[in-house]
């Protein structure tokens, strides 16, 4: 039996459903154009608390605090946030071993039509490797739900943050 195919699914809906299946109670976000409507949907969902933070490093610490208190939490940010949260990532999330799932829109990839994101796209994967963060890019030919569930499981099993890089089709509602 192979992986479920992604033929007709509305991927953002499936992504949100997967977060709820794994028991995410708190979504901490900093905006991105692709995430806008998704976060509106999260904010209207009574099963999940949406926290709109002012900075990605702050968002990471809020997510760590929620997990410390027993609420499974996830970060939803643009990939630029992976560049701005470095100190908190190594000194808090990794040092204290918080299993935080980070969903990051992968701006500046070759598929992104907005050219000014390119510098961030070029830096993203080298920075993740430099920070020692485990990550993967969502496969567009496969259903997104199981990929999210595996990423969340990886974070928990490794007791460390895990980054899932999203395309526009994955998250733009």
């Amino acid at each position: 039996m192979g992986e479920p195919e992604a033929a007709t699914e509305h991927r953002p809906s499936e992504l949100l459903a997967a977060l709820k299946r794994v028991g995410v109670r708190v979504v901490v976000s900093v905006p991105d154009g692709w995430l806008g409507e998704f976060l509106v949907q999260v904010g209207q969902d009574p099963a999940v608390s949406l926290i709109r933070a002012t900075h990605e490093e702050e968002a990471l610490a809020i997510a760590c605090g929620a997990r410390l208190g027993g609420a499974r939490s996830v970060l939803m940010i643009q990939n630029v946030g992976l560049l701005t949260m470095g100190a908190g990532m190594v000194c808090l999330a990794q040092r204290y071993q918080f299993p935080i799932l980070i969903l990051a829109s992968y701006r500046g990839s070759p598929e992104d039509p907005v050219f000014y994101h390119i510098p961030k796209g070029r830096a993203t994967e080298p920075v993740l490797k430099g920070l020692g963060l485990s990550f993967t890019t969502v496969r567009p030919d496969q259903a997104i739900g199981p990929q999210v569930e595996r990423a969340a499981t990886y974070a928990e099993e490794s007791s460390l943050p895990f980054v899932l890089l999203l395309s526009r089709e994955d998250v733009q509602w």
Partner: protein
Amino acid sequence: MVIRALPQRRDYYRVLSECLPKEALVVTALGNASYLWAVVREAPENFYFEDAMGLALPLALGLAIAQPERKVVVVEGDGGLLMHMGVLVSVGAVAPRNLAILLIQNGVHAASGGQPVTSPNLDFAALGRFANLKRADNIDSAEDLRAELSSVLRAEGPSLLALATEPDIDVIAPPVMFDPVMTKRRFMGAIGTPAYVSTMFGGGVLVDT
């Protein structure tokens, strides 16, 4: 004219220890904020920061969201808050009723040798009020803190008390080992945080301990 000396951090901590409700959780920022609190009131319900300057308050915000039935007290420094001032706005927006912020305002980065902070005399209470905190006051004596703290800890927050404090540059030796993972596990065990239990194939679940 009588010039009153500013209280020491220790003076404020004694008051906090006297007034702290039994079920309260305490998050302390790096350096003497944590080391001295461990001297005054070591407990598994303390979450000590080892480093990660500026992130004690956002972590406490997340904790307060996840533990709405317990009072969460965070001790942050003025230098730390200045590094992530935006979190005050987040606290005001989320408005957790169980969060109380004690801000040690000593005007210096004590943990790194006493360099002055960017703006030593900032009116943090005014900033807190503008950020929509329920209550925010500037305090400059242990007696005033004692008078305010009991009501702050009983009333709905979020609240901020900015404590004018004499700088303490000398590093205080904590009585316990500050191992980050041990700190986290001990804290989670003390408050009964659900534990992650893995399954052989596929995702695990959080289970009440």
